[in-house]
């Protein structure tokens, strides 16, 4: 029973993945806040209390990353089972469509295949990481607006933030043309 509850809760968390990640952060921050509160109650200054709480806690980002990783490992196993179920649904749907004599079963077969297809699509969309989604959005922007100077916001790729270089600047020059032009005009190139 406890396992079933855990599976249902985790599947719910997978559907609202960002919320699950926030919950990890909330939990870790709560710990630091409680330690800070106790430190202040013990007579420390607020600055010292926070510093001590952080020191005792250890590397916050590293610990949060480990917790998220543990969550993902478990989810990977559950998602394999869920994916397997979608194939079983497709199989049952096809079998009903092909083998059932009564016409009444045909819509049931169609519905099973449709639900399995939609379910699979939903899983696929959820599996794309937020960073990948942002990159895809940026790529679509580039494809759709090739000659427009896009003001791209920074992309967060697995924790490493970088800002894409626009293909063309406001004078319509490519990055290489810009580099050559800046060098020949004696500008410092960084």
């Amino acid at each position: 029973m406890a396992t079933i509850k855990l599976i249902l809760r985790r599947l719910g968390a997978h559907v609202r993945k960002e919320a699950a990640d926030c919950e990890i952060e909330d939990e870790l921050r709560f710990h630091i806040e409680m330690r800070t509160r106790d430190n202040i109650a013990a007579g420390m200054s607020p600055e010292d209390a926070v510093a001590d709480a952080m020191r005792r806690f250890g590397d916050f980002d590293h610990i949060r990353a480990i917790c998220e990783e543990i969550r993902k490992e478990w989810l990977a196993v559950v998602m394999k089972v869920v994916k397997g179920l979608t194939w079983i649904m497709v199989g049952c749907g096809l079998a009903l469509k092909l083998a059932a004599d009564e016409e009444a079963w045909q819509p049931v077969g169609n519905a099973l295949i449709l639900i399995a297809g939609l379910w699979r699509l939903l899983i696929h969309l959820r599996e794309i990481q937020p960073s990948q989604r942002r990159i895809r959005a940026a790529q679509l922007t580039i494809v759709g607006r090739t000659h427009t100077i896009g003001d791209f916001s920074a992309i967060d790729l697995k924790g490493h933030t970088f800002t894409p270089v626009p293909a063309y600047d406001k004078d319509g020059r490519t990055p290489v043309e810009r580099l050559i032009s800046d060098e020949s005009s004696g500008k410092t190139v960084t």
Partner: protein
Amino acid sequence: MLILKTLARGPLHGYEIALRIQQSSEDVLKVEEGSLYPALYRMEEQGWVEAEWGASENNRRAKYYKLTRAGRKQLAVETSNWERLSEAITKVLHTA
């Protein structure tokens, strides 16, 4: 084992678990407090503990962990293993 034992008395949030371990060991066991959380997450995966969000004593939202039946069994196994090991080490120390 220490976490499971601490939770045997009732549901606690992570900070309380860290405090109880430290207090029970009379400040001998001082671990990096953050390392408690990956351990709790692993235990949750194993089904040894269950977590639920609730309100803390200062009315903040906190995640409470409680021991499951599987967790109690695991605690019994680990306690027995530890007792055998520490007994064996004590014997060696006393004979050597």
